[in-house]
């Protein structure tokens, strides 16, 4: 487990540290409507064999972060600063050709909605084989295909040889997601980013996919970033959790810390809106009121303040001052909130805990 940092550290250039290290990442998109600050000073790291869960509503910056790591943003359109070290190499500022070589082999990504992420006109096997071939230029065609079929088998697709010759639309949702995972893993990547891999799937399939990811992680010893809005998923697979809001990290800690003893009102909101297996079955789910903020005109001060029922408890700091990520008493647990820790614990215990729960 790695201590997240709120301040940039000196870049590690050796292979011994965390496999992925993100330092003070900022991603901005100039648009016709203004500058979108999609990610605003986020830092974290992931080690091999570990899983980091990133949670947040849409617009919180989690997907942008992952795409930035993959180098999939058009550098002409996106302004990226900070540092992303993948196995010690800084991806920020790297040429397209260099990142391309990393993509798919050193780091790969499982996209949400595999129906649109897979090319509709090409056979599934061919798409996987292509991913293999590009990083193994010397592999023969049949070798690539064998590999693709093999991968399909390993992600649990029955009759992989037959399935390889089918098109994505002929697969069921779960099967497509497995194929997507097979494609992401075909080159044994060291870092795997899974963007909402289970969102579109029903619960049983979801569980199978998560199990599969866990098995594969054990096998390949990969570092995994699991992007999701589903706290249940996070609780199941993640070692650490990063909660994002408005392009910033608002809370970080181990699963235990964030799920059991959350300290940020936004995290509370997320938890309160998840049905509990342990809490009162009759307790109402409490949705977070209001809408996610505009990334062009973030609310001043704490971006969450318009939706936070505790805003203003500390004078007008919530409205004027951007809260920094600070370590709480517990080691490794960081929160960006102006409330005092005592207040946070008190509010949680009184207002939130009775009705919120986590599937754990």
């Amino acid at each position, binding site marked *: 487990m790695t201590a997240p940092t709120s301040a940039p550290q000196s870049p590690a250039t050796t292979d011994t540290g965390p496999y992925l290290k993100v330092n003070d990442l900022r991603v901005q998109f100039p648009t016709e*409507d203004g500058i979108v600050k999609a990610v605003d000073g986020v830092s974290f790291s992931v080690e091999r064999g570990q899983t980091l869960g990133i949670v947040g509503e849409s617009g919180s*910056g989690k*997907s942008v972060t992952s*795409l930035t790591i993959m180098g999939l943003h058009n550098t002409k359109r996106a302004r990226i600063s900070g540092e992303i070290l993948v196995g010690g190499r800084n991806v920020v500022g790297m040429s397209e050709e260099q990142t391309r070589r990393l993509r798919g082999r050193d780091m790969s990504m499982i996209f949400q909605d595999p129906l649109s992420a897979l090319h509709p006109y090409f056979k599934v096997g061919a798409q996987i084989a292509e991913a293999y071939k590009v990083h193994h230029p010397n592999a023969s065609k049949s070798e690539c295909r064998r590999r693709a079929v093999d991968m399909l088998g390993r992600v649990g697709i029955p009759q992989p040889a037959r399935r390889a010759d089918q098109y994505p639309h002929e697969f069921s949702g779960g099967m497509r997601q497995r194929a997507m995972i097979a494609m992401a893993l075909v080159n044994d990547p060291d870092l795997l980013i899974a963007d909402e891999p289970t969102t579109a799937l029903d619960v049983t399939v979801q569980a199978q996919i998560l199990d599969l990811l866990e098995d594969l992680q054990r096998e390949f010893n990969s570092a995994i970033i699991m992007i999701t809005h589903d706290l249940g998923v996070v609780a199941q697979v993640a070692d650490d959790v990063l909660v994002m809001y408005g392009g910033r990290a608002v809370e970080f800690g181990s699963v235990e810390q964030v799920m059991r003893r959350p300290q940020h009102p936004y995290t509370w909101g997320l938890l309160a809106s998840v049905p509990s297996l342990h809490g009162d079955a009759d307790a109402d789910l409490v949705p977070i009121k209001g*809408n996610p903020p505009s990334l062009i005109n973030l609310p001043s001060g704490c971006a969450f303040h318009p939706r936070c029922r505790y805003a203003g408890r500390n004078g007008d700091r919530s409205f004027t001052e951007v809260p920094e990520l600070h370590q709480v008493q517990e080691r490794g647990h960081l929160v960006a909130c102006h409330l005092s820790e005592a207040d946070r614990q008190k509010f949680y215990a009184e207002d939130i805990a009775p009705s919120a729960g986590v599937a754990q």
Partner: protein
Amino acid sequence: MRKTDSTPELPATTTDGMGGTVALEVNSPVDAPVGEKAKAFVGRSPGQLAWLRLKRDRTAKVSAITLLVLVVIALLSPVIEKLRGIAPTQPFTDKLNDYAMPLGYAGGMNGTHWLGLEPGNGRDILMQLVYGMRTSLLIAFAAAIVASAIGVLIGIVAGYARGWLDTAINWVIDLTLAFPFLIFALAIIPIVEDNFYGERDAIPASFRVILIIATFALFSWTYTARLVRGQVIALREREFVEAARAAGANTGHILFRQLLPNIWAPILVTLSLNVPAFITTEAALAFVNIGVIEPTPDLGRMIFNSIQYVASDPWYTLWPGLTIFILVLAFNLLGDSLRDALDPKSTR
């Protein structure tokens, strides 16, 4: 074809492959599977957003102003006639030479006849032009609106009705598309005129104009109808329609109160791109002698007549040619901008 059914949804802010699909519901407690920045414009209706975008679009502004100026000129043509004291049909044959070409320089341009005179009839080009533009714009706008109205009505009915009615309407659309428009226009216009007016009645200019509008509309509603039908089919299963139905709303209410407001954007775009197409087609009608008849001034007929003079009196060709080019270009640009503004997924 694929992709014509683009739904006007909440705009994503960038178009570099990040947008993903965008959801309409904004009050979900948890992160919906949507693009990251989709909710950047919270609290503004799609219409307001489109307006904002349009206002920022320089091309749109320039073309809109150009069109506005031309439309105002066209509308004010009687005033211009009063001010200049020259009627559009007034012949100045005395200012033509033996070959009926305008005397003087540059097609007879001078202080009285700012754009010169038409060869042959010796009419003032400026007056013919402004009045002609009025006729052409009237035809194009009216036809576009009527075509859209028919298309929307039929499209909604087809999309909502399903079953045999949908099949029948689809077949009628196919039939219309397979039917040569020009032949129909050529054949039908004289027949209808004969049936409506006696042999000695002056056929009012407006009647031919109405006929042309009707013919245009009759052959141009299909695209809108298909578009609307597709939209309706896509939308009719959506929650808000289901909800309305569950709440006991009648079909008419669902169709026009629930569905229509959600599909107006592509309709508007089609309409705005139909106008320049009709201006051009109206000019083509003059080619086959079924355009607007003399003595009503008409831009299309003027172009057809003037093209022949491109070598003998290029000025005569220039003015109407330039006018139609600017009109069509401005309309196309504005239509493009409108589409971009209303449907952010499409890109210029």
